[in-house]
């Protein structure tokens, strides 16, 4: 099976071949890896690559996998048509800012239609007893602000759009 993955915006093409129940061969960018795999659960594997052992947890996020190795988290993107058209890419300068955590909107610092600089605080979100300034990722005009002051938002909710 052929799979395309993204690491830091670079594409990697993998060819996987399951040779036996615990034995997978992976060809990646011209190199071949013979891998012994033990499965603990759908997300936990033990990989043995030429004697070197890696105990990994692979958890899927939307559009990517977070791979936990040696306590570190490494993000690997899934390549798919959706990914290429996805919300995060800059399309005609318009960008949606979503919240990565649930919380409550304490204060909205700018008006819709106002111009903001990159890094300027747009609103304050409180979660887990901390107030976090949510900043504009780019200069532009605030096209729309999703929530109102005092409102609570769930993970992934649209906070504002800059154009």
């Amino acid at each position, binding site marked *: *099976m052929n*799979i395309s*993955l993204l*690491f830091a915006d670079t594409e*990697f093409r*993998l060819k*996987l071949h*399951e040779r036996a129940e615990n034995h*997978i061969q*992976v060809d*990646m960018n011209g190199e071949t*890896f013979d*891998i012994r*795999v033990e*499965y603990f*659960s*759908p*997300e*936990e*594997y033990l*990989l043995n*690559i030429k004697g*070197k052992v*890696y*105990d*990994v*947890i*692979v*958890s*899927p996020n939307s559009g990517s*996998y977070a*791979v*936990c*190795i*040696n*306590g*570190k*988290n*490494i*993000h*690997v993107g*899934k390549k798919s048509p959706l990914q290429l058209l996805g919300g995060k890419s800059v399309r005609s300068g318009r960008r949606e800012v979503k919240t*990565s*955590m*649930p*919380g*409550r909107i*304490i*204060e909205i610092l700018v008006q819709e239609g106002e111009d903001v600089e990159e890094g300027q605080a747009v609103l*304050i979100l*409180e*979660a*887990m*007893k*901390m*107030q*976090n300034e949510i900043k504009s990722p780019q200069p532009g005009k605030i096209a729309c602000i999703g929530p109102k002051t*005092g*409102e*609570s938002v769930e993970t992934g909710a649209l906070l504002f759009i800059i154009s």
Partner: protein
Amino acid sequence: MGKMFKKILIANRGEIAVRIIRACREMGITPVAVYSDADRKALHVRLSEEAYHIGAAPPTESYLNIDRILQVTAACGAEAIHPGYGFLAENAEFVRRCEQEGIVFIGPSSEPMELMGEKTAARRTMHAAGIPIIPGTMDPIRDEAELRLQAGEVGFPLLLKASAGGGGKGLRLVKEEKDLVSAFRLAQSESQSSFNDSSVYIERYMEEPHHIEVQILADQEGRTVYLGERECSIQRRYQKVLEETPSPFLDDAMRREMGEVAVQVAAAVGYQNAGTVEFIVDKHKKFYFLEMNARLQVEHPVTEMVTGIDLVKCQLEIAAGNPLPFAQDDIRPSGHSLECRIYAEDPYNGFMPSPGRIERLRAPAGGLGVRYDNGTYEGYEVPLEYDPLLSKLITWGNTREEAIHRMLRALSEYQVYGIKTIIPFFQRILRHPRFFEGVYNTHFIEELEKEEESLDPEEKTVALIAAGIRNYKESRQSLSPCPQKPRSGWKIKGRMEAFSRRI
């Protein structure tokens, strides 16, 4: 041992409630837990012997609800209350209420607490007692006009600090005059929300400062000892994340001098029980009184690791009226200890809090010199309403080098799946040459964040392969024998209700 309580109530949650429960169980004291709607399944409830519901998820309706907590204490027959840290721990009003109702508060009495809780009053008292304080205002700022005036006198950069503050809440660094007013408003708002008191004052911002604190214990007979210092300069957003003892910045003479000043600070206010005197040490090794924390600190375990003294047990002994069983000369710290505060935050996304269900948890506990003070378990849903501290990982070593390597080893065994944690960030800190050499101050993390994170090419390759295998397995759907159980309706409902009540 002299007299001791039979039953105490713990007016807290999370890892510190568990910490206190463990001490009680080891002393034959019945620990009583209290819990909010969000904590019905929390670890501190599971490990307690008795547990009572005290209200809805928002702290003001549960862990800050003085009437309800006192009512439960009386009903269950507990003789004393341990407040932990945060919540009611430094609430002098609560201490007074305990005093009135004949319940022992495990901590100082209300007068020194009130004085130390009002940071500006503390500054005035210490100044009068001849203890060096940081230049700045002695009273809270009344309005924006006074703010501008006083700021001009102290000079930029300066710190705005909550008078009732602690833990980095209500604290703002102001580098330039143009940011002064907005920072003042944020600091006031955060102070109000965290401490129900919006007072803010000004302190000069010290250059390349070290944040070093001294643990003290004072019994009811006035015998006061210091138990060495903790270096707390590794801070993010003015909040400590990693602490160690001894401080690599101090020598033995300065260590003793600061210890003796800490004892003087405690004496100046008639302090009893465990407390911490915080100092700012500048680059010239001059130290200034910052504040006194009239409670157990989050980072108390590092002191326990090098002294072998259980500070919570000492708190209980002192509160019960027993004398300290050791003198200053009996305290001989040995080795080195580090603590990492494991927060549910995403280090790859601006340290945003990451509440949710811990799907899988491999605790790092194991081997010599590793201590795990936990407040969570596998399957636990980290609530949105409280501090994101999941656990504390503490290591001890004969040398600082051994303690650091041990921490790296333990962190590499610590696996959490389901929520994000700052574990990878600690690995960066601990592997950094400047940290390893012990040459760092409170700017360390700010500077670290500007550096490019390097990735081991081998780990990158393995991550790609692992993701590839998961992708392959998903496409075959051969790896999901047990589909994710959807959240039950009542749970989401309860959570939403708790939340809306808060707004």
